[in-house]
């Protein structure tokens, strides 16, 4: 609204007011606030108020039932001092690699390859690759829990090809449980990245390719001079979405491992649930939730900033 007004020539917006004929179309008017009011009320009630309330609760030691005691920032200090919580944030960092970095890199390579070769049935592949995004995460988790089961399809395949040594209870293995959960994230996010990048690539004019090829560029040069810069915005969007998905990951862990084995796959969002509903430490749960919210906010802003700064 404001940008529309600002882009208008000044002369065009001012005189009508003086002439008393009312405002020019597009000029900001107070009544505009009335239009955003319904959405604003919903936002305040269901987003802002709970957020402030959670921040409030995070300053108390509260079991959810008996009166709370004020503890100031003790719950936040605990996030730094508690080895279990630090580990949970560490696991989230590992998941960012599986959810965001890995899918974006692989999707970029795949898309770059596709630009060089015309692929038949692209629409079909696009649909199939995007399917994991459409399926509810709970269903994905149940399916993968079966795939990873000690006698599940993955181990059956490994044994069938003679790799018995590799077969294991993937989700019950202290080393492999976190990568196994992370790989499910890769599987889910890959399709999103590919579809986003394919859409971005289709906007690149063909003659740009012809130009670099005339200059004698190979596929690598072509990728770095044309494809990558052209996809800057898409990469930023993909990273933002996938990083958020990695950090707020709760459903997948809850449905597959419940943070186990031991605490090998506990993540911050699962800790929020565990502390609030199982252990009865609502204050600490709120502190973790607020910290997680801030972290997601900062990372998202960071990604957008980097993408904008590299704008040519």
């Amino acid at each position, binding site marked *: 609204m404001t940008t529309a007004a600002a882009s208008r020539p000044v002369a065009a917006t001012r005189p009508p007011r003086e002439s008393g004929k009312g405002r020019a179309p597009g000029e900001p008017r107070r009544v505009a606030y009335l239009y955003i009011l319904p959405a604003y009320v919903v936002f305040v009630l269901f987003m802002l*108020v709970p957020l402030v*309330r959670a921040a409030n609760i995070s300053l108390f030691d509260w079991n959810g039932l*008996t009166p709370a005691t004020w503890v100031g920032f003790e719950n936040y200090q605990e996030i730094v001092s508690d080895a279990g919580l630090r580990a949970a944030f560490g696991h989230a960092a590992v998941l960012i690699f599986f959810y965001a970095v890995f899918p974006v890199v692989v999707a970029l390579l795949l898309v770059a390859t596709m630009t060089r070769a015309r692929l038949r049935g692209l629409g079909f592949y696009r649909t199939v690759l995007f399917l994991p995004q459409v399926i509810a995460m709970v269903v994905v988790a149940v399916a993968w829990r079966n795939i990873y089961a000690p006698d599940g399809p993955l181990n059956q395949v490994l044994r069938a090809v003679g790799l018995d040594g590799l077969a294991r209870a993937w989700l*019950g293995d202290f080393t492999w449980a976190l990568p196994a959960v992370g790989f499910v994230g890769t599987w889910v996010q890959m399709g999103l990245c590919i579809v986003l990048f394919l859409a971005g690539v289709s906007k690149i004019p063909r003659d740009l390719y012809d130009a670099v090829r005339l200059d004698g560029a190979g596929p690598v040069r072509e990728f770095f001079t044309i494809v990558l810069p052209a996809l800057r915005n898409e990469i930023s969007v993909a990273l933002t979405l996938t990083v958020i998905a990695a950090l707020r990951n709760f459903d997948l862990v809850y449905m597959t491992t419940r*943070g186990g*084995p031991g605490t090998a796959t506990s993540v911050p969002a699962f800790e929020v649930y565990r502390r609030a509903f199982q252990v009865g430490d609502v204050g600490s749960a709120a502190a973790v939730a607020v910290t997680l919210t801030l972290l997601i906010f900062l990372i998202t802003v960071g990604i957008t900033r980097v993408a904008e700064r590299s704008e040519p």
Partner: protein
Amino acid sequence: MARILHRAVVGLGVVGLLVTACAPGDDGDDADSGAETPPASEPAEIDEEVTLIVWDQEVRGGQNEVIEELNAAFMEENPNITIERVSRSFEDLQTTLPLALSGDDAPDVVQANNGRPIMGAFVEAGLLLPLDDYAAQYGWTERFPDSVRATASYSPDGVTFGEGSLYGLAQQGELVGVYYNRAKLDELGLEVPETWEDFLAAAEAAIEAGEVALPFGNIDQWPGIHVYGAVMNRNVPTEDIRHLGFGTAGGDWTSEENMAAAEEIVSMVDAGLFNEGFNGADYDAVAAEFGEGNGVFLIAGTWLLPDLVGALGDDLGFMLPPPREGQPNVATGATSLPFAITSAAENPDAAALYLDFLTSPEAMQLVTEKGLFPSVEAGSQQTQSQAQADVFAAWETVTADDGVVPYLDWATPTFYDTIAAAIQELLAGELEPDAFLQRLQDEYSSFVGG
């Protein structure tokens, strides 16, 4: 969440509220801990119109039928009392009950899970009524043995668990024992073991025959507590187990006997008695496999009885984890979730009448008919299957030996998390027995000592 929202709507001028707002949990209207029931010797007459809101988690097949039939019969017998039933799965009930109880519109009767994290916390917050007067009026004290009442007894401040006032009454019993497949034992030429030594020998013989001796699915972490308990009960004196389980002073996780228990279960893993990859195996899937004839002994609770009877019929047997030669019978057991009366109940007398009805001899008979395990009077029931008869006999035996011990995760409000994860680590060899026991001891002693 409802509570938080409610509060938020009231105080819409939110931003300054961050620090100055009233502390969470302080409602102003302090719920009285409700010790005001008139000490009458006879149950009160209910002559007004009453609506009882009941939250339960009896949603599985037979359990649901029991409650539906009993509710209908109760309302027929007491036409002025209406029951509004809200049934949820166990997990949903756990997560929603605290908010529901602390809200303004709390239910009258709820099923509160045994132990400090849920029921103990409710008692501490003054949200449940002590039932001692009703217990005297209705004769519950005589009908329910000490070991059953202990699992729902707390001091009014919630600090002591296992004794004090009665806060709940359970309809069904629970016992962790050993299911066995009779046909499988015959096939392997094995007898039903009578001692722990025989049991381990039979398990090893089963392995040599290429069977899974002790199928075990521990991906969800809690089944490990039951299997560990079965081994611990063979090694540690009963009194010590009770101290450690109820979280009362006098126990020691680092004792020699506990060390022997931790080392024994590790040696069982090393001997391959459990299926490979049990930490990544699903509990229900493993139980279903056992029902299909894969596995010889399944260490599990009586809640699997209806499903396993359905799968194996008369091939299914149930026994207490056999004691060592010359030792008494000890088994982990308790009741199903006790029904409790909330402090917010508008007519506690009507709620008590309902509790009495749910646990009446007729109700126990109905529970048995549906293939389940009644919390009392199991011995006098007509059983529906061989395995059910085994369960009832096992219960008689173990209570005669005064050998029912609590679940290990009841000890402290956070002990479930500690021990569930620690057992997975112990069994995977990530944690040595002494470090495992030290971790448990640290939490236990800081709770008991503090």
